[in-house]
């Protein structure tokens, strides 16, 4: 199978059976925001706003570069934002304004804004 066919048949999450490196038995205790993000995922699922499969596809829809470069919960929260935009539950400008407001609770300039 050619390289381009591989791209066509394998979305970023679909890695079962691919060659990969030895397993490094890594783990870390979740940061507070990561645990909140996990709880948010569960609560969004309880309310039938975003279910597990929508979340997974939302992560995949970030594309290979973001899937590779963002951490696990960074991918989740980015996917939630995009899905909430798509469902019309939040508008991008609302989120941008709220993020500025949240960032302004700390003394120096907001990171990345």
């Amino acid at each position, binding site marked *: 199978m050619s390289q381009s066919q591989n791209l066509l048949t394998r979305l970023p999450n679909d890695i079962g059976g691919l060659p990969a490196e030895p397993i490094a038995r*890594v783990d870390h*205790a*979740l940061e507070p925001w990561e645990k909140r993000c996990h709880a948010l995922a569960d609560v969004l699922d309880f309310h039938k706003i975003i279910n597990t499969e929508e979340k997974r596809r939302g992560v995949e829809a970030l594309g290979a570069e973001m899937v590779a470069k963002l951490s696990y919960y960074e991918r989740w929260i980015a996917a939630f934002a995009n899905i909430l935009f798509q469902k019309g539950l939040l508008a991008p400008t609302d989120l941008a304004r709220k993020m500025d407001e949240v960032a302004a609770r700390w003394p120096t300039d907001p990171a990345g804004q």
Partner: protein
Amino acid sequence: MAVQSQTPNPDHNHDNDHEHEHPHAEISQSERPGYYDIMETAIRELLVERKLIGADEIRRQIEVLDSRTPALGAKVVARAWRDAEFRARLLANGRAACEELGISFYDDTQLIVLENTEKVHNLIVCTLCSCYPRPVLGLPPDWYKLKPYRARAVSEPRAVLAEFGTIIPDDVEIRVSDSTAVVRYLVLPKRPDGAEDYSEEQLAGLVTRDAMIGVIPVSIEAGGPPL
């Protein structure tokens, strides 16, 4: 606004990259949160303001998450080892049997319990993401969510098991079960030799998270999880 990273974040679990340890600085209240931390707070507050979720729900769900550890799964395994009727119910309907022991399934998933025998060794994975029997084991370890385990467990399980120090004889079949959003698996390990006189609590003390994923056996010597 496109959601994209604008600040380098030190906590990258690169799925398509080398895994590495994640040293974390002490978190203090005065420390500026990162971009995605701010995004999480902003999304949560907007959802609460719009009454899409309740103000207290995240805190309560964090308490639920904190209450789930491999000790619950270990209790289920130990009960199954000592109670043949419970074991039969557990293998017939994992969720219902766990609920008998007071373990609720907050994420609305089904649970299939896979019994290791002299002839079959089971291993669980989620090739697409990180689905895991969270109601009975808590959250999965990072290695379970990273590419090497997800990619290789289904194609070369014996080599993967060997990396965990587990050598399965060639005449024992290895079955790998790939989890989905709604169907999760739990391995019922073999009861170790030498534990015939153990109480349920003593047996549960031998059962580790990794044994219930299927990457190591339960042994009397090696109680206690790595990591």
